[in-house]
């Protein structure tokens, strides 16, 4: 890893992609993997860290006095420190491990939401949210008789700020939005949105699932109250996610799940809960996955988010330019500079599923479907889209293979 950055084979962005790819065993399959917004590949280092745990100190955490358990606890807690640093939280007490970001958002909706949202309160979301940042709020709103409002997008796929401010005038209880749209790649003005929402007295949750690994976050600088991301999209394993919450809020919130590890003392008729963050981590957590996530964060920091962002921008510009020449192909989303490494498109007369099937036969993996954003599909008036997404290990050669597959699809469906 330490030899990666200054290699002469580096791309224009300064990344030595060839060396990076060596770290990812998946690429031995020969597949052009253009679906990292769905799930990323994992470097060998992550796999080895997890195997090391399973092989050499496999034990539960926080529960035993023997050596390997203490070792497991230490590694588990080390990841918490790495996450704190990665997103610049004030304290490790503000970092809660969940199973994914869906659980992180649900934790806020169930715990904070049930305590703080009342009848007729307004919750503001946007039309381009992933289902995981819509459905938990619908459930909450339904239960409490609260109202939901959605900020629309303009033709470029950017949020309608005029509408956002109009909704803020109604003093919402909560504003929740994606840092980066999973479908359009739109990088929202999350700093400004957070500041404006706070000025209107709202609590702010940012869905960082597509943001933390591409544009990064400084939760203190941005000032959001809650932030979440998921391990498997940031080179880590599945089964682990992160919720950041401002300490004052987390302290005032009731537990989400009850059970072992989240208690101080249990009596037959009541329980005194553990402090932060254990209060929100009931039961045996995904220990190996948390350890793997720590290594994934090391890897990202080692390569550097700025270099990753520059590389993805280069690939996005390359793709947008190449796809522009294809007849009947429509792209969705803002100009490359204003989006992450995501290109969503459709081709007249060819359903995205058929595109993805033909591309699969060319060993090119893309996402096809509604991308877990059905309200956005309706807003764009499409049933489904095809989406290519990039990460630090992708190459222009893989995008060329995407083009070959697209031309083949056009030939078949001509």
């Amino acid at each position, binding site marked *: 890893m330490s030899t990666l950055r200054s290699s002469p084979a580096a791309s224009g962005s300064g990344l030595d992609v060839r060396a990076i790819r060596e770290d990812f065993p998946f690429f031995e399959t020969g597949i052009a993997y253009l679906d990292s917004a769905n799930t990323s590949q994992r470097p060998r280092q992550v796999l080895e860290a997890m195997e090391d745990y399973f092989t050499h100190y496999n034990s539960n955490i926080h529960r035993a006095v023997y050596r390997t358990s203490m070792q497991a606890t230490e590694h588990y807690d080390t990841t918490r420190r790495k996450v704190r640093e990665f997103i610049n939280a004030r304290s490790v007490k503000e970092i809660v491990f969940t199973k994914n970001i869906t659980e992180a958002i649900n934790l806020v909706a169930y715990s904070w939401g049930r305590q703080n949202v009342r009848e007729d309160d307004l919750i503001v979301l946007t039309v381009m949210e992933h289902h995981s940042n819509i459905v938990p709020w619908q459930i909450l709103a339904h239960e409490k008789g609260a109202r939901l409002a959605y900020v629309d997008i303009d033709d470029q796929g950017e949020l309608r700020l005029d509408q956002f401010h109009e909704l803020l005038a109604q003093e919402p209880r909560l504003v929740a939005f994606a840092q980066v749209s999973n479908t359009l790649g739109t990088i929202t003005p999350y700093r400004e949105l957070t500041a404006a929402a706070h000025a209107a007295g709202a609590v702010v949750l940012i869905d960082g699932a597509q943001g933390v690994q591409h544009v990064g976050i400084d939760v203190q600088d941005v000032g959001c109250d809650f932030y979440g991301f998921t391990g498997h999209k940031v080179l880590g394993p599945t089964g682990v996610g992160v919720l950041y919450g401002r300490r004052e809020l987390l302290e005032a919130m009731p537990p989400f799940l009850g059970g072992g590890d989240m208690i101080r003392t249990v009596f037959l008729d009541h329980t005194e809960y553990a402090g932060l963050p254990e209060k929100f981590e009931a039961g045996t957590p995904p220990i190996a996955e948390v350890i793997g996530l720590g290594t994934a964060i090391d890897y990202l920091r080692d390569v550097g988010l700025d270099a990753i962002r520059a590389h993805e921008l280069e690939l996005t510009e390359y793709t947008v330019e190449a796809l522009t020449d294809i007849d009947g192909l429509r792209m969705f989303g803002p100009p490359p500079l204003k989006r992450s490494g995501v290109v969503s498109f459709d081709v007249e*007369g*060819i*359903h*995205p*599923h*058929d595109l993805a*099937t*033909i591309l699969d*036969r*060319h060993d090119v993996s893309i996402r*096809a*479907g*509604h991308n877990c954003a*059905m309200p956005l*599909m309706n807003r764009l008036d499409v*049933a*489904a889209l095809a989406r290519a997404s990039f990460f630090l290990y992708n190459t222009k050669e893989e995008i060329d293979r995407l083009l070959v597959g697209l031309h*083949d*699809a056009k030939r*078949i*469906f001509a």
Partner: protein
Amino acid sequence: MALDDQFYREYILDHYKNPRNFGRLQDADVSHEEYNPLCGDMVGMDFRLQDGVIEDVRFHGRGCAISQASASLMTERLKGMRLEDARQISKEDVLDDLGIEISPARLKCALLSLKVLKVGAYGLAGEEDDEE
């Protein structure tokens, strides 16, 4: 790539581009729509029945070549068929009609029209939907 040609055979593409019995029936006795929650694809069918026979059938919808060709092929099979016999149409029949190898990921696309038939037409006959 030869493989693709085999997958998207000429008649599949033909049914996709020139769907048979496409549209709505004004005087339908039964209408039913189903969605594939994974991709949002939709197939709907209108049936006109006479003495237990499917006198006419039309389909509408939006989706991939597999889901739409499957629906088009299904309507050809159904027209003039006794409802009783239509009830016997199985998953295997639908896949036979398509005549291509369907990967597990695309099975739901291929079988969407069968689901419409089962829930829509069988439901009318008072039968339970026994799918899965």
